[in-house]
C-alpha cells in the first residue's frame, strides 16, 4: 500500500510535467490544426536555458544568498526565451505555409525539430548537462512515504500555472479572442481580432509552459540532454489526444493519466517497456474514441 501511494505521488509529479507540455500541443492544434513537432524541442530548450541561468547565478554567488529569487528568475527567463523562440519559429516556418497542404507544414515542423535539437547539440555539447542538485534536498516523511520538496514545488507550480492558464483563456478578452480564432479565423478577423497576433501568442504561451516543464524535468532527473525533447514530446502529444485535442482541461487530465500509467506500468509491469504504454494508450484512444475523453465532435478533416 505504501509503495502504491508513493508511486501515485511520483505519477502525479510526472503527469504534471506532461500536462504542461501537452497544453502547448493542444492549444496550437486548437488554433491552427497543426501538430507542432518542434514543441518537444521548446521543452528541451527550456531545460537548457534554465540550467544555463541557474549555473550563471550560482557562479555569481547569488545562489547561496537568494536561492528563491534565482530560481524564479531562471524560470521567468527560460519562459521568455522559449516564447521568443517559438514565436520566431512560427513566423518563419509555419506562417507562410498556412494555406498549403497539411503534409508541407508537418514536414516543415519536423525540419524545425531536427534543426533545433541539433542546434542545441552544437552549442551545448553532446553530453548531458547536470542541474545543480543541492537546491532541493530532503522532503516530508510520512512513515514509508516520502514527498520531496521538489515534488511539492513541481505539483504546486503546475497547479498554479494551470489555474492561471484557465483564467487567461476563459476569463479575459485575450482568451476570448483565442477561442474565437480557434473556432473560425475568418469570422474572428471580421470582428477585429488580429488572428496572426493571437496565433503567435498561443505559440508563445505554449512554449513558455513547455519551458517550465523543461526546467522541472531537469531538476527532477538531475540533468538535461539535447535529445530529451522527443520522447516526452510524443508522450505529451498522446496526453493531448487522450484528453481530446484542442481541449485545455482535457490536456491536463490526459497528462496526469499518461504520467500515472507510465509510473505504474514501470513499477508493476516492466520498467524497460515504460515508453510503450503511452503509445499503446494513444493508439487505443484513437481507435476506440478518436475525440478523446473531453473532446468535442471532430469533423472529417481532423481525424
Amino acid at each position, binding site marked *: 500500500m505504501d509503495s502504491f501511494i508513493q508511486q501515485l505521488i511520483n505519477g502525479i509529479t510526472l503527469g504534471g510535467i506532461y500536462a504542461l507540455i501537452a497544453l502547448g500541443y493542444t492549444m496550437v492544434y486548437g488554433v491552427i490544426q497543426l501538430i507542432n513537432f518542434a514543441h518537444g524541442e521548446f521543452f528541451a530548450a527550456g531545460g537548457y536555458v534554465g540550467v544555463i541561468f541557474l549555473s550563471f547565478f550560482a557562479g555569481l554567488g547569488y545562489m547561496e544568498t537568494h536561492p528563491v529569487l534565482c530560481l524564479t528568475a531562471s524560470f521567468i527567463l527560460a519562459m521568455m526565451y522559449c516564447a521568443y523562440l517559438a514565436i520566431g519559429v512560427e513566423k518563419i*516556418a509555419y506562417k507562410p505555409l498556412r494555406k498549403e497542404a497539411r*503534409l508541407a507544414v508537418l514536414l516543415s515542423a*519536423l*525540419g524545425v525539430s*531536427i534543426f533545433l535539437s541539433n542546434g542545441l547539440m552544437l552549442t551545448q555539447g553532446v553530453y548531458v548537462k547536470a542541474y545543480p542538485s543541492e537546491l532541493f534536498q530532503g522532503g516530508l516523511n510520512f512513515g514509508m512515504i516520502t514527498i520531496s520538496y521538489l515534488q511539492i514545488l513541481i505539483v504546486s507550480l503546475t497547479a498554479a500555472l494551470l489555474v492561471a492558464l484557465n483564467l487567461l483563456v476563459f476569463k479575459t478578452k485575450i482568451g476570448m479572442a483565442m477561442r474565437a480564432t480557434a473556432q473560425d479565423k475568418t469570422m474572428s478577423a471580421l470582428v477585429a481580432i488580429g488572428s496572426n497576433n493571437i496565433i503567435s501568442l498561443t505559440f508563445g504561451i505554449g512554449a513558455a509552459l513547455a519551458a517550465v516543464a523543461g526546467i522541472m524535468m531537469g531538476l527532477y532527473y538531475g540533468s538535461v540532454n539535447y535529445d530529451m525533447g522527443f520522447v516526452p514530446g510524443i508522450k505529451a502529444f498522446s496526453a493531448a489526444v487522450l484528453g481530446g485535442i484542442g481541449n485545455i482541461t482535457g490536456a491536463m487530465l490526459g497528462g496526469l493519466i499518461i504520467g500515472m500509467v507510465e509510473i505504474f506500468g514501470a513499477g508493476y509491469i516492466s520498467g524497460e517497456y515504460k515508453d510503450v504504454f503511452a503509445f499503446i494508450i494513444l493508439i487505443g484512444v484513437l481507435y476506440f474514441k478518436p475525440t478523446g475523453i473531453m473532446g468535442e465532435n471532430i469533423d472529417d478533416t481532423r481525424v
Partner: protein
Amino acid sequence: MIQEFKKIWKQYAITMLWLLGLLWPLLGIHPDGTLSFQQTVTVWSYILAGTFVCFIIYIINKSGNFKFFTEPVVNTSQKLSDMVQDMPSWIWKSALLICAVIYPLATGRYATDVAINVLLYVSLGLGLYVVVGLAGMLDLGHIAFYGVGAYTYAILNVKYGMGFWVCFPLAGLSACIAGCIVGYPTLKMRGDYLAIVTLGFGEIVRIILNNWMSLTNGPNGILGVKTIGILRPVMENGFTFEMFWVKKLEIFYYFALGLAILTIIAVTRLNFSRIGRAWESIREDETAAELMGVNTFYYKLLAYAMGAIFAGFAGALFAARMKFVSPESFTFLESVMLLCMVVLGGMGSIPGIILGVIALIALPEVFRGLESYRMLVFGSTMVIMMLFRPSGLISAKRTKQMTTKSEVKE
C-alpha cells in the same frame, strides 16, 4: 533594386537579429558567472555571411538579373527533356541500366558501398511511396518494417541456420504481417493522427527490439549474420554444384540493383493498374472513392502490406550485407529521412524518389568533413524546401490535390 525588396530586407534583418538573440544565451552565458559576446558574434557572423550570400543570389534571381544565365539553361533542359520524351523509352532506360551495371567496375570500393546504400533506400523509398504517395497515408514509422525484415533474416539465420533464399520471402512476409498489424487499427484515421500513430508503432518496434534480450540480444544487436549463398555450377570432375558465399561488394551491388529494379517495375505496374487508381482515388477523396465502389478498407490495408513487403526485402538484404543488425539502425530519424526522400524528390513520381534518395544519401557522403553540421543543414533544408517548393524537385503529373491545394476546410 534595394527599394524593390525593402520588405524582404527588413524581414531578413529582423530574422538575423532574432537569431542573435537566440544564440547569445546559449553561447554567451557561462557557469562561472561571466558573460561573453565574442563567441556569439563570431558564430553569428558566419551564419550572417552564409545566409547573406544565399539571400543576394535569391534576390538577383528574383529581380531577373540572372536571365542571361538561367534562360539558356532552362531552354536546353527543356529541349533535352523533349528529346528524351520523343525517344523510345527503352533507349534511355537501357542506357541507364548499362550505366548502373558498369558502375562498380568503374569506381572504387567506397563508391560501391554508397551505391548499395542508395539502392536499398530506393526500394525502401518506393515502398513508402506506395503508402504515402499513392494511398495518401502519412507514415512516420516505415523504417520499422525495414527493421522487421532485417531482424527476421538475422534471427532465422543465426538461431536456426536458415539460408538467405529461404529467409528472403519470409522477411517480406513478416514485414507484411507487421504492416497489416499497423494498418488495421489505423484505417479509421487520417492525416496528422495517422502520422503520430505510425510514429508510435515505429517506436514500439524499436523499443521491443531494444529490450527483448532473449530474441534480439537487445542493444548489442545480432552478430555473425551470414551473407548470401548461391549454388554455382562447377565443371571440374563432372557437373556438380558448389556453395559460393557472396563476399565481394561488387556482387552485392548487383543483388541490391536487382532488388531496386524489381521494386521499380513492381511499383510502376501497381501505379498504372486498377489497384493504383483505387489508391489514388482514396488519396484524393476517401468518401467519394467509397461511393464509387472502391473497397477502401481492403485497398488501404493492401497499401500498407505492399509498402511493408518492399521494406522487408530491403531489410533482409541490409542484414546480409552488414552481417550485423542492431536497433540503432531503425530510429525515428531514419523514418524522417525516408519520408524526406519521398517528399523532397517529388511526391508521386518514381524518378523524383530516386533523385531524393541520391540527394539525401550520396550528397552527405561528399560532405563528410562537415559531419556534425549535417543534420542541422538537413533540418533547415527541409523547412526551406517546404517554403519554396512544396511539391518536390520533380513533381508528379497526376498528383494535384495532395501538395498544391489545402485540405483544411476553413
